[in-house]
Each structure stands twice: as C-alpha cells, then as structure tokens.
C-alpha cells in the first residue's frame, strides 16, 4: 500500500499540483478551463449551422479590432468586440449587396480587416513584440481583470445557451419551421453571432487568433462522432473543451511549448480518437427491423380524374 502511495500517487499528485504553485499559471489554468468550455459549447451551434468559416473570419477581424483599439487608445476588449459584431453584420450585408456567396464575403472582409490590423500594429514599434502573442495567444500573461472578463463572458454565453436551448436547437435544425411557429429566428441568429463575437474576443488572449476557430469547431465535431442527441452533444463537447484546455496547459508547462498550440493539438487528438471510436462508423448490428408493420393500403377508386 505504501509502495503504491509513494511510487504512484505522490508523484502523480506533485505532477498535477506543481504548476499550481505559480500564480500566473493558476490564472492561466482558470482561463483555459473557461475558454475551453465557452468555445466548445457555442461551438456545437457553429458546427451544426456550418458557421466554421464565420468563426475563423470573426477571429481574424477581432485582431484588426484590437489594433484599432490600440491606435485609438481605447479598451482593447471593447474595440475587438465591436469590430467582431460589425464584421458579423457586415458579412451578410456585403453578401447581399454584391450578390456574392457568404463564403466569399467572409473571405474578403476577414482578410481585409486582418491585414489592416497587421499594417497598424507593425507600424508601431512598441507594440510589435505582442504581435506573436496575439496571433498565437499567451496564457501566461492573463491578468486578474482578463480572468474576470472571461468569467463574465462564460457566464453570459452559458446562460443564453441554456435559457434558449429549445429555440436555438429548433432554429439550428430547421430555421423555416422554427420561424413558421413564431420563434424569432432572425433575432436568435443575431444573438448567436454576438455571443460568438464575445467568445472569440475573450479567447484571443489564451489561444490566439489563429487557433481560436479550432477550439470552436474541434470539440463539437468530436462529440458529434459519439452521439445522436443534441443535449449529449453539448455535454460531451463541453467536456472535450475543458479537457483540451487542461491537458494542453500541462503539456505546455512540462514540455515548454506555447499553450495555445498544445491545447489545439490535444483537441485534435481527441477528435481522431472519437473518429476511430465512433459507434456511427461501426457496422450496423442487426437486432430488430427498424421498419414498423406495413402501412394499411387503402384501396378504392383512386385514379379517377374529371
């Protein structure tokens, strides 16, 4: 018993607890838990509504917003959030006005705003050092204020996703049917984009522009391999999101690699494990026929016209 304790449990405990001795890593761990949860929960709708590219686009334009915020000396979070929301609205408007597909519109806007951000930031010598952090994220620079903003955002996002679970589910599955029975589909679409913009903005610090879209899409896509129920999808996706964050930050600590990249690599690994383990890919076991008894055939003078 003592051997078990000394040889396995104690080292495991110190392995897990060692990073917690540093305040900045504590903050980092809390940040990745919240970001992982937030991204992976809203990610279920992103995946089911095929919004992956919009998530990517918003993340890149958020970077432009941060740059503008820096230039105008206003709060970076607010600037990034406003830019993301404006971009989300602009994508639809440009697509309608120019009569181009949504994909093309996203491609034009996000790369334009992103490039604009790079031009501004690279012009300023003081800021250039942080460019790498913004693109790839740096969990170790999370401040207490950042943590509070992330906590507030996570609470808002989860509260909205839970409160409007039914309505979001219906409009993600069948927008026309949802609108027909009186669910405010256009309003929900807009609300989802704003929540997405919020999520992406707070996630930038931790995982960076380039990798945030992976955290939006990968946990949800992994969960989709394992379940056919939407409620399970959210639970699994959230679990994978948190797991990716936690495992990723430990990897980052012990192997000295950027946390954002480690987190995304863990998420990707989970995806491939789910893909291989998916019951959906297993050959169907024949138990009982799916068909119900044959429908009653109505006979009569059917084919009379005129």
């Amino acid at each position: 018993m003592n051997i078990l304790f000394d040889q396995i449990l104690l080292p495991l405990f110190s392995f897990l607890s060692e990073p917690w001795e540093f305040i900045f890593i504590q903050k980092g761990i809390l940040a990745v838990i919240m970001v992982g949860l937030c991204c992976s929960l809203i990610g279920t709708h992103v995946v089911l509504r095929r919004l992956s590219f919009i998530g990517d686009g918003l993340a890149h334009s958020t970077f432009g917003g941060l740059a503008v915020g820096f230039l105008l000396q206003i709060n970076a979070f607010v600037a990034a959030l406003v830019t993301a929301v404006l971009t989300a609205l602009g994508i639809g408007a440009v697509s309608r006005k120019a009569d181009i597909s949504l994909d093309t519109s996203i491609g034009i806007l996000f790369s334009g705003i992103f490039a604009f951000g790079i031009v501004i930031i690279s012009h300023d010598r003081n800021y250039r050092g942080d460019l790498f952090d913004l693109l790839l994220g740096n969990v170790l620079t999370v401040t207490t204020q950042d943590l509070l903003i992330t906590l507030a955002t996570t609470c808002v996002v989860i509260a909205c996703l839970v409160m409007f679970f039914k309505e979001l589910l219906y409009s993600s599955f069948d927008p026309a049917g949802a609108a027909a029975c009186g669910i405010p589909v256009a309003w929900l679409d807009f609300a989802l984009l704003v929540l997405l913009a919020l999520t992406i903005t707070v996630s930038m610090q931790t995982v960076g522009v380039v990798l945030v879209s992976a955290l939006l899409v990968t946990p949800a896509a992994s969960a989709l391999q394992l379940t056919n129920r939407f409620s399970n999808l959210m639970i699994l996706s959230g679990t994978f999101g948190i797991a990716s964050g936690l495992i990723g930050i430990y990897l980052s600590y012990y192997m000295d690699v950027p946390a954002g990249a480690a987190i995304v690599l863990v998420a990707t690994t989970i995806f491939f494990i789910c893909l291989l383990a998916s019951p959906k890919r297993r050959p169907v076991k024949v138990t009982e026929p799916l068909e119900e008894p044959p429908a009653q055939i109505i006979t009569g003078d059917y084919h009379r016209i005129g």
Partner: protein
Amino acid sequence: MTSSQKNNLSIQLSGVSAGYQAAPVLNNINLVIEPGDFVGVIGPNGCGKSTLLKVILGLIKPASGRVTLGGMTPEKMRRKVGYLPQLTQIDFKFPASVWDVVMMGRYGLRQGFFDQIKPINEEDKKVTKQALERVGLANLADQPIGQLSGGQRQRAFIARAIAQEPEVLLLDEPITGVDITSQHALLHLLEELNSRGITIISTTHDLNCVASSFNRVVCLNHKLIAEGPPNQVLTQEILNETYGSHLLVMTERGPHIEHNLSSH
C-alpha cells in the same frame, strides 16, 4: 389534443401579390379557405405553391394585398398553424431523435420571455407522445431522425406539426419522394386529421391523390387559374392552362384521346 373540436379559422387572401414587380411569384390572388377544408394546391414548379404557403404563414410579406387568418394577421396566428416544410432543406445528420423533432412542435407555443425559458413540462411530453402515436411512430421515438425512411420522416414532421395542436396544417410536398405505400399511409393520416376538424392545405405534384382525397383544388400558375371541388376543376382545359402544356387526363374508362387530339 385537437380531438374533435371544430376550428373556425377561415383564411382569406385578397389581392395578394408577392415577389418582384417585374415578375411576381404570386399575382393578385383572391382566395378564401374555409375551416375544415382539405385543399390541394397544384401547379408547375416555380408557380408559387410554396410561396402561397409562406404568405399564409407570414414568412413572406405580400408586396400588395392582405392575408388574414380568422381576421388576424398571420404573425399573430402562427401558433395555430402547423407547417411541414420541404424536407430537402433539412440536414438529417443533425443529432436529434424522432422524439426531439416532434417535441420541437411545442417550442413555438411559449409566449413571452419567462414562459420561453421554462423547461419542457409534463403536458409537452404527453402531447408529443400522442402525436407520435397518431402518426404511428411511437416505437421509433428514440431513433435518430436520420435513420428513418422518407415516409417516416414526413410522418415525424407531421407529428411535430400536430404537437403544436394547430387548427390549420400547411404541408409543402408531403408525398414527394416517398414510396407508394407510404403515400397512401400519409394521405390516410391527413384525411383522419381533417376529419377531426383541422384545415389542411397541401401542395402536391400528384394529381391522382388530389382527385381522390382532397375536397378542394387550387390551380396556381403565378395567378389563380381555378379553384373548386376536384371534379369541377380537374378538367382538360384548366389543367392545360395551369401547366401550360397538354396533359393526358385519364378517367376510369381510359384516356381522353379524342379530346386531347381535338384540342390541337
């Protein structure tokens, strides 16, 4: 449940046009649909059949004219109207069981924010179960929606519309793409719902089922060509005008060859 209570919701379209000025999808439609009617809407592809349903649902605002349901605007009456959209637009890989899909019919009934955020209650479950039983899918409730056959999917979506406890049921191509056995089962189901007092308006390509099951036919080709009981409306002339071509109309005695030839 809707049971046998008769509804008294009449649908009125007066001078309804929709789409663009240059090429309206619907052009000056005047139509009254009485409570309890069983209406088939026929016409060629792109003639405005789906648009007509969407105008009644309030999903498309008419460019001119007025739509009323029981004297009210469509937006106010949405909860009384069940809708079966064309299922070609649905992603059947979506992670939802048959039960989940039918339960969605209950979601639109909530009114106001605080009602909206309440979880599913016992009444919702009871009505969902009844709706599934009525369409004969109770034993498949836990199956993923994507594993159902075409006809079963249509029935699941009809169950969703019934779960809303509607007075009017609008169906967009309910029997398209399902096998003939399922077609009969679906028509039988619609007849049964209609006999319980639900007004049914359905678009279809199948003139045979219109002739046999429906008590009113609306012939549409952007404008209203004709409407009335099937035996008065499904004539050679009206169908030719509706479809813009010559159709061979069969009766019990055989094709109207002479009639068809003589009209050339």
